[in-house]
């Protein structure tokens, strides 16, 4: 059975941990391990932070959208903004690449997503926005009694 949720929220940094927890709570019913939960919350943070600080650098009314879908043991998450977009996604994906070194960004956001998820797809168009699609299959060796 498929379970879907869609979320949209004001692109302000106070909502970052709300987004982490909302996605975490949605996937909690698959009973992931703490590692898996932490990994998923971390990638959601990275993508949401990117949407807020890179996607909407000068805008106050931007919204970030998240969609998540559970099928069996697979989690699919989409994070989307309608912000400034990127002209060179390949460059942006490089470890350590950041367009905002002055903000002390690490340039590791996309690298973290690639490390923690099974699949990372990025679509972006300047002036249209950015969509990140993340897929992770959860481990099945579940503790049966707790």
């Amino acid at each position: 059975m498929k379970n879907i949720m869609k979320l949209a929220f004001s692109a302000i940094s106070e909502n970052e941990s709300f987004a982490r927890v909302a996605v975490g709570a949605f996937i909690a019913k698959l009973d992931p391990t703490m590692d898996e939960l932490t990994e998923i919350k971390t990638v959601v943070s990275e993508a949401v932070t990117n949407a807020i600080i890179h996607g909407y650098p000068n805008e106050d009314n931007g919204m970030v959208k998240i969609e998540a879908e559970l099928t069996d043991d697979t989690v699919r998450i989409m994070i989307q903004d309608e912000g400034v977009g990127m002209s060179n996604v390949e460059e942006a994906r490089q470890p350590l690449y950041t367009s905002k070194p002055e903000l002390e960004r690490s340039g590791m956001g996309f690298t973290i997503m690639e490390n923690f998820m099974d699949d990372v797809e990025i679509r972006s168009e300047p002036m249209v926005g950015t969509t990140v699609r993340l897929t992770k299959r959860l481990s099945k060796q579940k503790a049966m009694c707790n």
Partner: protein
Amino acid sequence: IGEIQRFLRDDGTVKVSRSIKESANKIRKMKEELTKTLGRVPTVNEIAKSLDMSPEDVVFAQEASRNLTSIHETVYE
């Protein structure tokens, strides 16, 4: 990469259901303790600060334990 490793916790393979239950117990105890010392019901931030958690995670842990308890009861009892 050290940054990535910092995200990983030692008890990483523990199921969320168990780990969350422990956090929920700490929250319950902290709520009782703060209610006594403050003379009123604590706020979410007060609990979060004393347990070094984010307020959102306090909400999550508290709820997840409620939920898992009821699953546990229906399945095992």
